[in-house]
């Protein structure tokens, strides 16, 4: 796919990524008979958290998918997916800190310090902040090889994110385990580094 086509394709993909946020907005304000249900605060926080994890997995799927299919253009969507993962995570945190705790610092700090699942989620949030901040073309250029090192933080952040979900659940861990299985698969696919074609060709001659 040519760079021109992907540039054009980015617009509908971007809008599609915004759909979950749009639906939540309609539900929150009761537009068109939509509603967040009996416990709107919980519904909002859980939905935003789930979408953040979804986008994190989608982002991590780009590289293995490119390797499997050989479709290099997929890589051009990775940054957008990563930034959407951070966008939903930021909203998830703001819904917790603002809507649920009303920015009461005492309660928030107590949660982060004493509730392990919140500690994990908060750690993942902190890890992803520098990644979002260094996602511009200029920062990539300025950081050079260190950019790649820094962005490896996405792996521990994703692990903590899924773990956070696992620890939140009361008894039915099926859903968090599905996320864990997908994450393990996506990470395992990275362990086996395929020998770059050019190198292999050279060694053969």
């Amino acid at each position, binding site marked *: 796919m040519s760079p021109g086509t992907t540039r054009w394709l980015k617009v509908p993909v971007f809008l599609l990524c915004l759909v979950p946020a749009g639906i939540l907005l309609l539900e*929150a304000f009761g537009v068109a008979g939509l509603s*967040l*249900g*009996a*416990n*709107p*605060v*919980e519904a*909002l926080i859980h939905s935003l958290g789930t979408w953040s994890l979804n986008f994190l997995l989608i982002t991590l799927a780009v590289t293995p998918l490119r390797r499997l299919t050989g479709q290099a253009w997929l890589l051009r969507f990775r940054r957008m997916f990563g930034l959407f993962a951070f966008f939903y995570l930021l909203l998830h945190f703001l819904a917790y800190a603002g*809507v*649920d705790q*009303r920015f*009461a610092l*005492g*309660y928030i*700090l*107590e*949660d982060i*310090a*004493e*509730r*392990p*699942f919140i500690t994990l989620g908060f750690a993942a949030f902190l890890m992803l902040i520098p990644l979002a901040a260094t996602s511009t073309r200029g920062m990539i250029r300025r950081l050079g090889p260190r950019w790649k090192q820094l962005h490896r933080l996405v792996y521990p952040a994703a692990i903590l994110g899924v773990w956070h979900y696992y*620890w*939140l659940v*009361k*008894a*039915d861990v*099926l859903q968090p385990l599905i996320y864990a299985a997908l994450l393990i698969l996506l990470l395992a696919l990275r362990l086996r580094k395929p020998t770059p074609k050019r190198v292999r060709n050279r060694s053969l001659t």
Partner: protein
Amino acid sequence: MLVKIRRASDIKQSEITSQSDYLKRRQFLKAGVSAFAGLGLMRAGIGEAAIQRGPGKLEKIADIRETAYRPPEAITEYEHITTYNNFYEFGTGKSDPHRNAGTLKPRPWTVVVDGECEAPGEIGIEDILSGFPQEERIYRLRCVEAWAMVVPWVGLPLGSLLKRFKPTSKAKYVAFETLVDPEQMPGQRRAVLDWPYREGLRMDEAMHPLTILATGLYGELLPNQNGAPLRLVVPWKYGFKSIKSIVSIEFTEQRPRSSWELAAPREYGFYANVNPEVDHPRWSQARERRIGSGLFAEKQPTLMFNGYADEVAHLYSGLDLRRNY
């Protein structure tokens, strides 16, 4: 470290009307009302008119007695009570019970009562509904997950039913079990918990006047998702103690184990008394979110024994509530 921040809007302990004062006030009011009615000016039946009535989705329960058990708080909407709850027999999501409970057949229904008693036997739901006066009890319901409702139950004191079976002096506890039938309860196809769902009370807790067997909600028969046709309601304990769709009641000498205690003993104890000072290992129990208060409402402080301390605190004197959570 527990950071406590007191704000001006927080309810001080001294500002909260104690249940006993409240009941006294109610009694005073009721005495006044009945004196007034006695004049022959109001023969319409005050009690019946004041009973909370639902949307008419299910059969109306006739001749419900009004009681003084009604907290001075907004009652949660029927819609919310019946679409948001935990009933893992129908799925683990909060809206799963509402969506999936249609397969439950609450008639005919028999409860077996046995164990340490002189007159073991069975009792059908029709006999429970016709053989005991049905009372309206409006109670706070506090879930262990830190959300809460105010629910207008209809039911009978558990003690009045238990007495019929003549428990012996060996009966120290009462054990309850929910129906097991994966055909009717599709959530039981997965071993999320060790079915049947089990619960238990100490004998004095079971005989306490606040403890009821609920047969209805908002003046109508219990919806399936809320534990039809018969469930326990123990308002000073976390919601999971209030076992639903009961088929078995057994008097025991040994303390029974409850399902959540068996599933995660570090997190859920046998007593499960509502206690804002003893946190769940994974979240705070100091405050609760009232269902129906909307997206922008503040959480409110959870009360000791869910606000029923005056009536039940004496049951636990000398018991370390931190260890016996």
